[in-house]
């Protein structure tokens, strides 16, 4: 199969099928409808199940049932739908059920609009649902990377028995780029068998129970420690990021997803104008990549975080730099794209005037 031209939403759906996902439960919401529609067409072709649920609340609970029954399962939605799914996501994390959840972010809060935005960062990275839990959150910035990361997400989910979120935005969902499924990066993890799944007892010695209820405080405490041992392992092994032109950089742009593409353009323009500018692109938003900041914090004059929001990831950058250097922010909400000219102006200010 050569390169094909696909929308981000379609590429993710195809990648999921190629990763062995045979169960998809979803509910229509713009700008991710192409995932749902693609699945409704493809799942019957591969002997899988597509089911349009009555709500996002039901969709995520169908994911809970199917994931708990041992299947590779996915759902996709956009901000308002993800808000409805938070209850189920907390239960999935608590009951240690692997699954992949795609959020194609749009402008908010409330009904907001349907343009691509990045204002659900906190919701995905810092919690969203109740209780102490973490989601592994991956943020692609090209259509090929959407396919790569969806493939990877299923392995990570199974490896850690935890939900994995693909955090994209309306732009990535709607735009088309060539994608090569023959060259999708595959990790080939050595995944354990799902001996915990509720498949019907059969001849098994013990009953399998999928559950997040531990009424006895010391027992629940122990369960929380088990979860956090897992998260610690993820922090050691699942950090992903890209660094561009950082070796000599005095100003470093920090951006993820669609915004990182714009930032890369601005970096190139600034370089041509004589400013030593680099780019750090976090790919895993949780676990957040701290290393690139440790490596560069002594050399730079400052960082410029750019987001399609009023500033969410910027807080993680402040933590990662331990406030040793100024962390500047420029962002626009509501699906508006931060202006390259403004970014350039800010870079010049941080660098200390004209060259």
């Amino acid at each position, binding site marked *: 199969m050569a390169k094909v031209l696909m929308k981000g939403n379609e590429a993710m759906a195809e990648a999921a099928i190629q990763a062995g996902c045979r169960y998809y439960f979803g509910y229509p919401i713009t700008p991710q409808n192409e995932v749902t529609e693609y699945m409704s067409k493809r799942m019957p072709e591969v002997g899988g199940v597509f089911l349009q649920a009555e709500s996002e609340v039901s969709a995520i609970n169908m994911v809970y049932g*199917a994931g708990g*029954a041992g299947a590779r399962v996915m759902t996709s939605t956009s901000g308002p739908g993800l808000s409805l799914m938070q209850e189920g996501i907390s239960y999935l994390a608590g009951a240690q059920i692997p699954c992949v959840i795609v959020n194609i972010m749009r402008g908010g809060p409330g009904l907001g609009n349907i343009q691509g935005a990045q204002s659900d960062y906190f919701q995905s990275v810092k919690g969203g649902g109740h209780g102490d839990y973490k989601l592994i959150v991956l943020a692609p910035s090209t259509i090929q990377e959407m396919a790569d990361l969806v493939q990877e997400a299923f392995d990570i989910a199974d490896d850690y028995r935890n939900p994995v979120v693909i955090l994209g935005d309306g732009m990535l969902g709607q735009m088309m780029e060539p994608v090569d499924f023959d060259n999708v990066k595959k990790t080939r993890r050595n995944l354990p068998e799902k001996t915990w799944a509720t498949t019907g007892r059969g001849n098994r010695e013990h009953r399998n129970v999928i*559950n997040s209820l531990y009424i006895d405080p010391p027992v629940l405490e122990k369960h929380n420690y088990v979860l956090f041992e897992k998260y610690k392992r993820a922090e050691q092994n699942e950090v992903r990021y890209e660094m561009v032109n950082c070796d000599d950089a005095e100003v470093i742009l920090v951006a993820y997803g669609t915004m990182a593409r714009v930032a890369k353009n601005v970096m190139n323009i600034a370089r041509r104008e004589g400013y030593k500018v680099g780019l750090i692109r976090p790919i895993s938003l949780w676990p957040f990549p701290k290393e690139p900041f440790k490596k560069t914090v002594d050399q730079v004059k400052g960082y410029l975080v750019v987001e399609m929001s009023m500033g969410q990831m910027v807080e993680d950058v402040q933590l990662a730099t331990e406030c040793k250097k100024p962390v500047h922010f420029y962002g626009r909400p509501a699906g508006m794209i931060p202006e390259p000219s403004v970014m350039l102006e800010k870079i010049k200010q941080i660098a200390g005037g004209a060259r």
Partner: protein
Amino acid sequence: MAVVFEKTKGLTDVPFSYCPGCTHGIIHRLVAEAMEELGVLDKAIGVASVGCSVFAYEFFNCDMQQAAHGRAPAVATGIKRVHPDKVVFTYQGDGDLAAIGTAEIVHAAARGEKITVIFVNNANYGMTGGQMAPTTLVGQRTTTTPYGRKPEVNGYPIRVSEMLSTLDGAAYIERVAVYDVKHIMQAKKAIKNAFLAQIQNKGFSLVEVLSTCPTNWGMTPVEALKWVKDHMEPYYPLGVYKNTLEEVK
């Protein structure tokens, strides 16, 4: 010594967490016996809900999942779609099924989801301390209707069996009670029929069981059983509301 009685294999040895005199215990036993007698225990996957029966996953001797409040039919849908050859059931109370989980139960029934729902109706929220449920009778006092349920404030009780039986996806729906031996026997037959509807791939099946809550009703167990007969049964008539089984046993 000859064995004259044995506990069903469908239940674990974990002691029930239910109040004395509550009929959840009877209903658990009927569900467990039905699965054992139909020979489906080894392929049963149950879904516990939120309410007094939240610990049902401890009691039924088969694979179990515990679902969020009201979501059991959606969870069961996910399980059944992955394992269509297995027998999947939910065990839900009236708050769980008829209030917060109304969308999930209606759409599972409308899809003809091949699952069996055991719906325990005791006309109040038991676990949280006896608040008004969607099934609370007009005039009935609860901790959130201290002056009795008033239609002008709280509207009217929902008759779940009648409502769901209007849906084409429903294959077997019956309302039963467990206040005396005769009715307990009928309830078991109904539960078996509901499982059969699933096994025969007919569609969605549900048995609504009128149950007691002596603790929150402030009655003795015997008074509570009589209250079901005298007050609940007239509003919630017993009987088969939908039956598409090939042969009724």
